[in-house]
C-alpha cells in the first residue's frame, strides 16, 4: 500500500510533496489556532499508539490470512481531521526512516493517499454524514465500514495514478487498477470493522473521549466555511492533477489494450513488438520533458523508436556492454572505498564511539 521511491519520478514525487506540505501547513495553523495545548502531547502519544497497535495481527474471518489496523480513520474520529493529518504525517515519516516503508521522496504521495483521503474525505464527508450526532452500534459500524472502504479505495487509486504517471513501472493503468481496487476493497472492509469495534469499545468505556473530539471538528459556522473552502482548493488541486494525468490516460489505456490483445498472439513477435514500440513511442512523446532528460541513452532511445526501428543500432549494443562492465566496476569501486574507509575508521579509535 505504501508508495515506494523506486517507482516514482521526481515530477510526480515533487508535486505530491508540494500538495502534502501545503496541507501540513494548513493543518498546523488550524491546530495551533485551536489553542488546546493538551492536544499536541495527545497527538504524539496517539501516533506512538498507532505504531504499537499496527503490530498486533488478527485473523481475518474466512480467509485464513492475517491483517492489522491501518488507523487513519480511527485517528480522524479521535482527534478531528487536522490533528489526525499531522499525526499520520509523523507516523509515515517514522515508517519511512526506520522501517524503510515507502521512502522519503514517496512521503508526499503516501501522506496524500493515507492521510488526506481518510482525514479530509472519508471522515467528514462519509463517516460523519452517516454516523450523525448520536450513532447507535449499527449506524456507527456502517459509517466506519463505508468510510474506511472509500478512504482506502481512494488511497489505492492514488497509488495507481502516481505509479502510472511516473512511468517507471510498465504496469498499464487498467491492469493495475483491476489489481489494486479489489484487494483494497477487502482491506477497507476489515479496516472498517476493526475501527468500528475499537470506536464502540471506547465509546462504551469513556463516551466523553469520542464526543470530545467532535466540537473541535465543527466549532461553528465560520470554520465550517473554511473547511469547505479547503476542500474546494483540495478538489481543484486534485482535479487539476487528475486532468493533467487524464490527458495521458487514454493513451495508457490504449496501450494496455494493445498489450492485452497482443499477448494472445505472442507467437507473432513482429506484430506484438511493433505495437509495443508504437505505444512506447507515443508514451515518450506525450510524457512531458523532465528537466534531466538529456542523457545520451535517452536520446538514442528516442531516435531508435522514431523510425519504428526493429533492431537497435550497433553502437547501442556496444554501449550496453561497456555500460555493464563499467557499472559493475563502479559498484565494486564504491564498495572497495567503503571497505577501506571502514578499516581506517576502525583503526582510529575514538572516545565515546560504539565499540
Amino acid at each position, binding site marked *: 500500500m505504501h508508495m515506494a521511491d523506486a517507482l516514482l519520478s521526481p515530477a510526480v514525487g515533487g508535486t505530491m510533496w508540494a500538495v502534502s506540505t501545503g496541507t501540513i501547513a494548513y493543518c498546523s495553523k488550524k491546530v495551533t489556532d485551536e489553542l488546546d495545548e493538551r492536544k499536541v502531547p495527545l497527538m504524539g*502519544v496517539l501516533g506512538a499508539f498507532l505504531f504499537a497497535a499496527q503490530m498486533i495481527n488478527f485473523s481475518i474471518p474466512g480467509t485464513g490470512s492475517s491483517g492489522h489496523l491501518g488507523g487513519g480513520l480511527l485517528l480522524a474520529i479521535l482527534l478531528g481531521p487536522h490533528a489526525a493529518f499531522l499525526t499520520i504525517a509523523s507516523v509515515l515519516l517514522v515508517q519511512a526512516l526506520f522501517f524503510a516503508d515507502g521512502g522519503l521522496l514517496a512521503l508526499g504521495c503516501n501522506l496524500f493517499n493515507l492521510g488526506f483521503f481518510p482525514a479530509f474525505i472519508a471522515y467528514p464527508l462519509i463517516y460523519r454524514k452517516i454516523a450523525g450526532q448520536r450513532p447507535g452500534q449499527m449506524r456507527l459500524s456502517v459509517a466506519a465500514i463505508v468510510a474506511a472502504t472509500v478512504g482506502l479505495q481512494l488511497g489505492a487509486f492514488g497509488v495507481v495514478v502516481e505509479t502510472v504517471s511516473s512511468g517507471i513501472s510498465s504496469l498499464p493503468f487498467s491492469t493495475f487498477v483491476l489489481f489494486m481496487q479489489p484487494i483494497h476493497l477487502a482491506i477497507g472492509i476489515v479496516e472498517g470493522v476493526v475501527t468500528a469495534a475499537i470506536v464502540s469499545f471506547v465509546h462504551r468505556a469513556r463516551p466523553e473521549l469520542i464526543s470530545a473530539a467532535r466540537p473541535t471538528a465543527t466549532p461553528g459556522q465560520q470554520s465550517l466555511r473554511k473547511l469547505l473552502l479547503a476542500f474546494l482548493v483540495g478538489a481543484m488541486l486534485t482535479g487539476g492533477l487528475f486532468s493533467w494525468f487524464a490527458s495521458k490516460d487514454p493513451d495508457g489505456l490504449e496501450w494496455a489494450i494493445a498489450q492485452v490483445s497482443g499477448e494472445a498472439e505472442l507467437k507473432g513477435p513482429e506484430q506484438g513488438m511493433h505495437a509495443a514500440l508504437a505505444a512506447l513511442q507515443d508514451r515518450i512523446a506525450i510524457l512531458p520533458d523532465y528537466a534531466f532528460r538529456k542523457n545520451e541513452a535517452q536520446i538514442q532511445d528516442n531516435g531508435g523508436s522514431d523510425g519504428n526501428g526493429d533492431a537497435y543500432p550497433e553502437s547501442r549494443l556496444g554501449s550496453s556492454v561497456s555500460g555493464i562492465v563499467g557499472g559493475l566496476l563502479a559498484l565494486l569501486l564504491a564498495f572497495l572505498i567503503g571497505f577501506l574507509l571502514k578499516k581506517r575508521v576502525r583503526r582510529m579509535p575514538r572516545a565515546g*564511539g560504539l565499540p
Partner: protein
Amino acid sequence: MASIEGRAANFRLLDQLARADTAIHRLDARAKVVVTLTFIVVVASFDRYTVAALLPFFIFPVVLAALGKLPTAYVARNVAVAIPFALAIGLFNPLFDQRVLFELGSIPISAGWISCASIVVRAVLTLSAALILIGVTGFPAVCEALERLGMPKVLAMQMQFLYRYLFVLIEDARRSARALELRSCGRLPRLPTVASLIGLLLLRTWQRADRIHMAMLARAYRGDFHSRKAGNFGSSEVAFVAGWMALFALLRVYDASQLLGALVERALP
C-alpha cells in the same frame, strides 16, 4: 507475533547506532538531511531503463555507512526486508515490456527486465539512504533539522512526542499481545478480541497522555523542547554538502559506468 519483538529490537538498535560519535554523526543534521533528499531525487530522476549509470551512486550510502560505522549486515538486512513491494511491482515490467533491447551473448534481454533491474537498484539506493540517514543522525536530530528547514513547529513537537513514547507503547502492546498469544493456543486471535485489546491500549494511552501533560506543566512546559545539541552550519557542513552535490551532479551528467567501461575496453584491446 514474534515479529513485534523483532521490530522493536531492530528499532532500538538503530536508535543506539545513531548515538555513536563519528565525524559523520557530528555533522549538523541539516546538512545530512539536505544531501540525502538531493540524493534520492537525483536517483529518481533517471529514466526507467537506466541501470549502469545508477550503480556509481552506491558510493554515497556505502561511504556514509562506513564513516558512520553502521554494520553492513544490519543495513543490508533492513533494506532486503523492504524490497519486496518494489520488486513485486517491478516484476510486471518483463511481462508488459517484451521489446528486446540487446542480446547478451545469445540471450535476448528485454526492456522489461532492464527496467525491473532499474527499479530494484533504485529501491536499494533510496531505502538504504533513508536508513543510513537515521542511523548516522538520530530521529530527534532529524526532526530538529526539519524544523529548522521550515517544518511547522506543531508537527516537529508532535514527532518528538511520538518518538519519546514509541518505545514505551511498543513495550505495552508487546506485553498485551504476548498475553493474548499465550491464551489463544497457537491460533491467530479473532478480530473482536484484538479490537477490544487495542481499545484498552487506546484508553491506557489516552490516560498516559493526560498524565504526561500534567507532569510537563508541573515542570514549566511552555510548548518548547530544549535540546542540548544546537549545532551550527560550519565549514565542514558546507564542504560536506558542496562535495556531495558536486559528485551527484557529475554522476548525473556523465555516465561514470560508461566511461569506466570504455576505459577498460581501450586498455584491453
